[in-house]
């Protein structure tokens, strides 16, 4: 039937996309760590205070980046910074190029950014560096391109691996699981899936029934899960490192009356997810820290002082078990919030 052929074709394309990227197995991880540890000579970027910092946000439309930006501002308040200029590319890479050009016109001393798409702005960043302005990436994956001086990066692969191992432990190494990933093609989605598959090699009794892309959207994750629940009469576990989507997934199970059959993997420290963990006592969190913004700003200050930095500064993820969630959840705050150490003056809105 046509549907079957279409399904196979779609699966084939999807497999190609995943296989073609096939990044970060253990060896690549070691290579990445080694590359990140390389020191960078920043004497060319040294400037005198006060500093004007440009922040080119690839997008400002989700709460994580809003928190990361607040961390940047918080750290900036501790240093002689005269101005922080923020531009928002709203997920449009051509606009991000234009934004960076406009920021350069404002004669910034340093550029902090997070990309819509790494490759689209590579050339623009190289031009920025050539003009003696350092660039610091905040919160994405490790970037070894010459246009980026240093990255305050979060390893999605390590995050994914921690989540997967925890799920395997909770499941006792067997059962049928589904994976809920963010926007297809992003570093997060690619690396998380690679880490999961790497871990699954050690657990042959696990059946990865379906890999879905919920686009970091709670409603979409819920809708997809509702359909998965129809396709599979029993699902034992869910691999979902993004707490925002995990809530949607869990809700779908709950409304179908099948919450008892499933084990949720840890999510991140999205407040709505933390509330769910506090309520249900399972899952936990592997953090995806918005304080990457703070780390980026700290690196920026060292660069502006001419001090050496390494090519990559990892912002590590930590595991918070369900029984310790209480210290991190903020029950009186909205769901769309992140566990944070930000002082009140710098909390969003």
């Amino acid at each position, binding site marked *: 039937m046509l549907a079957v052929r279409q399904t196979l074709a*779609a699966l084939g*394309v999807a497999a190609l*996309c995943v296989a073609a*990227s096939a990044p970060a197995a253990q060896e690549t991880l070691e290579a990445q760590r080694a590359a990140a540890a390389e020191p960078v000579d920043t004497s060319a970027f040294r400037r005198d205070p006060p500093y004007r910092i440009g922040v080119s*946000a690839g997008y*400002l439309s989700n709460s994580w980046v809003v928190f990361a930006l607040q961390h940047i501002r918080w750290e900036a308040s501790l240093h002689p910074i005269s*101005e922080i*200029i*923020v*531009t*928002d590319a*709203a*997920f*449009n*890479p*051509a*606009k991000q*190029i*234009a*934004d960076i*050009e*406009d*920021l350069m*016109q*404002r*004669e910034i001393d340093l550029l902090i950014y997070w990309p*819509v*798409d790494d*490759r*689209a702005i*590579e*050339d623009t960043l190289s031009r920025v560096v050539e003009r003696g302005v350092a660039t610091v990436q905040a919160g994405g994956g490790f970037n070894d391109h010459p246009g980026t001086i240093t990255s305050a990066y979060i390893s999605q692969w390590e995050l994914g691996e921690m989540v997967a191992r925890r799920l395997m432990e909770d499941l006792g190494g067997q059962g049928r699981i589904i994976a809920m990933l963010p926007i*297809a*093609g*992003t570093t997060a989605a*690619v690396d998380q899936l690679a880490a999961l598959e790497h871990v699954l090699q050690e657990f042959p009794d696990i059946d990865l029934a379906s890999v879905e892309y919920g686009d970091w959207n709670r409603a979409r994750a819920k809708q997809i899960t509702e359909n998965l629940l129809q396709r599979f009469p029993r699902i034992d576990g869910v691999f979902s490192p993004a707490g925002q989507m995990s809530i949607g997934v869990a809700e779908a199970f709950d409304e179908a009356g099948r919450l008892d059959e499933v084990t949720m993997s840890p999510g991140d420290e999205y407040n709505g997810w933390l509330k769910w963990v506090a309520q249900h006592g399972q899952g936990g969190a592997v953090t995806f820290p918005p304080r990457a913004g703070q780390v980026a700003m700290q690196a920026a200050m060292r660069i502006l002082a001419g001090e050496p930095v390494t090519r990559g500064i990892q912002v590590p993820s930590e595991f918070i078990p369900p029984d310790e969630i209480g210290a991190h959840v903020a029950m009186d705050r909205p769901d769309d919030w992140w566990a944070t150490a930000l002082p009140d003056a710098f909390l969003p809105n």
Partner: protein
Amino acid sequence: MRVALSPAGRLRRPLPAVSGAAAIWALVLLAAVVAALLLPAFRSPENLANLARQSAVLGLIALGQTFVIAAGLIDLSVGVIAGLVVVLACALMQGDPGAMVWVSAAMLALGAGIGTVNGLLLNLLRLNPLILTFGMLSVLQGAIFTFTDRSVGRPSPQLSALANGSVMGVPHSLILLLAVAAALHVLLTRARFGHHLLAAGGQPEAARRAGVNVERVRLAALALAGFCAAAGGLVLAGRLGTGFPLAGAGLELDSIVAVVLGGALLAGGRASVIGTLGGVLALAMLSNVLNLMGVSSFVQTFVKGAVVVAAVILAQARRGGQA
């Protein structure tokens, strides 16, 4: 430009209606002068060159849209055509300078081809152009994603040079844009095709009686729009340096806004290439100036919407209510 018909139904030379184009350019120049006085960063030659480069892609796409709106139609698929070209061009070129000519030619043909398909379906199925081109947008965007879900390939270095380089301070892409605009301006105002197009858009029944093949003219307009969108896509590929699957998203709506800001009537029959360029520049300046002023992006979005509303109402008021 309105096309006047003599009582016998023959088409006379079109009356120039410069008012729409003149209005937007007056506004743009006034804003530019104010910005130059108040913002030193704005008036630097480098910023002006940036501004030109930032306008080139939308400019090319909007030029094609001008013809479509002149014909009384609307084309929502131009953005995704540009996006498709970005992905395919980068995937096929893979950074090879030798691939520049044949891939570019193929992409332009592809754009014209998709536009032709739009036109054929429009004439065959007698659909509303909004619905047809929206359907085409969905199908093509889905097709792009099925081909790839992440950035692929790299454009030939000539495209990067075209999109980012300049000669004596004047960006290459600006020269290209002005050249294309000049040619299309002549086509719209002096050539018989242009007269027929405006007639078909403004008064289709009268045009038919005067012997204009309205269906063929509409098809040509859509094919031209596809061609221009592909040209815009090539420049965009050069600018991005990679085949980003969502590259063209949103450009179709911006192109319609630019054409309408330029004095065109959405109902058809009145449009101006010069006006469209003014509209494109207005949109680019909005983003550029507000960025230079450090205005928050959220406020920028609001301002953009308010400007569109205000401009469109003012244009209507100037027209004295004749629809």
